[in-house]
């Protein structure tokens, strides 16, 4: 049974368990190691197209207001997130002031893939494409700006504008 609220799935607890960010990072590292960079991008894109189907169906039916509604509810359920979701003329902007995943991984001195932040582009853009939209990402490594807009209006994503993940101050939690 699918949830009636702003998120497609419902859980017994209001906020997710932060240690699952360890699994997400480890999954990216494993897929990259076994299937290469191209395999990792295929994994991310399939996630957006397939797993996020109930999300992009809402975006397709509800347009940009549905995008804003989804991301507000999504980040409210992510532990440690500090994200402002703004509905602007013809676009929705997510100002990620504190990425919950990067914050948790760095706090626990976990190694993080340098391309970790690219997943937000490849996953969200694959989902958005199904709704006639696009996702563009600028920044990263703990803070970024993500913009959702009609696909026809979107410039190409420049991957160089997505930051690679840096080491923590003591040199651990570093990219590999």
């Amino acid at each position, binding site marked *: *049974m*699918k*949830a009636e609220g702003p*998120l*497609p*799935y*419902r*859980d*017994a*607890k209001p*906020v*997710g*368990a*932060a*240690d*699952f*960010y*360890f*699994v*997400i*990072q*480890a*999954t990216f*590292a*494993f897929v990259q190691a*076994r*299937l290469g960079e191209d*395999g990792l991008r*295929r*994994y991310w894109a*399939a*996630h957006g197209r*397939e*797993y996020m189907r109930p999300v992009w169906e809402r975006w397709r039916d509800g347009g940009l207001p549905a995008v804003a509604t989804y991301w507000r509810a*999504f980040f409210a*359920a*992510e*532990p440690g997130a500090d994200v402002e979701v703004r509905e602007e003329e013809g676009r929705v902007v997510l100002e990620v002031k504190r*990425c*919950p*995943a990067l914050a948790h991984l760095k706090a*626990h001195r976990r190694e993080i893939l340098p391309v970790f932040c690219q*997943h*937000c582009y490849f*996953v*969200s853009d694959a989902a958005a494409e199904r709704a006639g939209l696009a996702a563009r990402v600028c920044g990263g490594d703990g803070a970024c700006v993500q913009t959702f807009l009609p696909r026809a209006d979107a410039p190409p994503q420049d991957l160089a504008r997505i930051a690679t993940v840096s080491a923590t101050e003591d040199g651990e939690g570093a990219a590999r």
Partner: protein
Amino acid sequence: MIGVYDFCGHYDWTFAWLLRCEGGGPALLRDYWEQAISRDSQRHARDLIAAGGFDGMARYWGHTLREEAAGYTATAGADPGTGRRFFRLDMYDCPSRGFLLRNGLEFSPDYCDHCIGWIGPVLADAGFGVDHEHDHGGCCWWEIREADDPAAQSAPGETAGADDARLLPDWDAASRHHFARERRAAQQQRKEERQA
């Protein structure tokens, strides 16, 4: 962003993707559970159990099952005959499987197998073995002993009393999967003792 609010949903979807992707299949999925989960993401569990043994198990599962809002009981004890310790978990409301059931999700053929897929190697590397059953309905039990402990798995209710998952009204014995502890080490030890 891939988040954690619906983690169990995309974890299950990932299992299915690893089974069918180019270059994928059952071997890749088992490798994922052992390498990515058991040796990488859950290294904190591995470290606690390797260093603290039974006490480390209590600390790890006490933290993680509380964080996941699981319905479970943990039983630590010792065999009255041999004095050898054991640690047991009885799950009557698995938060992970429960998420899938509540939301009608079933991407992979057997989601529950992932737990033995990563916990088994953690325990084996730390010198432990586990008897385990899950019923695919959110109930399971785990009975962990040292690898050279020749004791058989307990009978229902013997070590966990009324908390034993096998005695719960929800326990679906017909759909359970059973994983028997590796006892070769203990059998070999007994054989060597007899020969000596």
